[in-house]
């Protein structure tokens, strides 16, 4: 029935335990960036699709309500960009200046209008920002390019099938192989209305 009455071992181990915990807590660095939104919440938001803003709607906005953010690389930005756009490329979102700027505009609930070469590109940035908790970001639905020393912008239709697949496939299948081979059907291009808008000075 006897047990060791000595407490030496208990004391030593308890103190060690305490030390380990204290050291662990003191040396613990909080992860600087955490996603505030869970993946489920993000999905809910994605399905709504209200974070995509077309160029028309964008023009209706009051100037002071938004900041335009160019998420392309510095180099692309330097070549040409929308008027008043600020360059924060996606990979640099975590840089001090960028994150403090983003924070600032989210605090005054300005809308951060994101654009890139294509909405796809802006989408990456938007996903990142939304999950980080910036709920005020929107994607500007435009395609930008730099052609002939001109910064060009055009509208895009997202997720619009260019052709009616089933129909075209059927018509193609109905044709004899020989006919298909000879046929040079011009590629159907996205027939979005080309609107030249906001063409800045061209070049840097």
């Amino acid at each position: 029935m006897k047990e060791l009455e000595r407490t030496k071992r208990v004391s030593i181990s308890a103190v060690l335990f305490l030390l380990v915990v204290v050291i662990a807590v003191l040396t613990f660095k909080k992860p600087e960036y955490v996603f505030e939104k869970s993946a489920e919440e993000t999905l809910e938001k994605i399905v709504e699709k209200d974070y995509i803003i077309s160029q028309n709607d964008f023009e209706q906005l009051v100037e002071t309500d938004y900041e335009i953010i160019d998420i392309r690389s510095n180099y692309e930005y330097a070549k040409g960009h929308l008027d008043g756009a600020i360059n924060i490329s996606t990979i640099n979102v975590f840089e001090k200046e960028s994150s403090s700027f983003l924070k600032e505009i989210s605090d005054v609930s300005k809308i951060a209008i994101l654009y890139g070469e294509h909405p796809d590109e802006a989408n990456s940035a938007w996903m990142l920002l939304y999950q980080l908790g910036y709920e005020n970001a929107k994607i500007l639905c435009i395609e930008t390019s730099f052609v002939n020393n001109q910064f060009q912008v055009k509208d895009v239709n997202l997720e619009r099938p260019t052709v009616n697949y089933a129909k075209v496939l059927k018509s193609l299948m109905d044709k004899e192989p020989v006919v298909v081979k000879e046929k040079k059907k011009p590629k159907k291009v996205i027939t979005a209305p080309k609107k030249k808008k906001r063409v800045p000075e061209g070049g840097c």
Partner: protein
Amino acid sequence: MKNKKQKNRHVYWNPYFGGFLMGLLIILTFYLTGRGLGASGALKSGVVTIVDTVATTHAHSNEYYSKFLSEDKSPMNNWLVYEAIGVLFGAFLSGAFTGRIKWKIDHSPKITSKRRLLFALGGGILFGLGAQIARGCTSGAALSGMAVLSTGGFITMLSIFGTGFIVAYFFRKNWI
């Protein structure tokens, strides 16, 4: 030497030290495997294996056994079985170091060994039954459950010890 062992025989660790190490072990177990300790699961695997070898058709038709039987895997091929083997080894080592290994029956001087063994058997049967109903024994349900604040673990623990205190009076002769 022998004298020293004799003296050592009944000296156990300071309970707080034992508890502390056990706590660390539970942490380690959860950290490594994501689950707690257990003991009765191994015995269950043993029973299933025995029944399966003695009466295969019966084992497969019984709803409870068939839960643990699969075509390609023996029920003995289970984490808890290996753990139980480890327990046997570990306890043997500890007993060997302190010279506690001996054929022996623990009981109150007031009762005979036979009575003690009968009660042990009966208690074992009840405990086995209860452990299956509650899905775990003191180590699996109560101890490991409490470590992750499982409600079921706390309920089981309170239920075991509560009942224990209530019925302690009837079994006093066995122990005191």
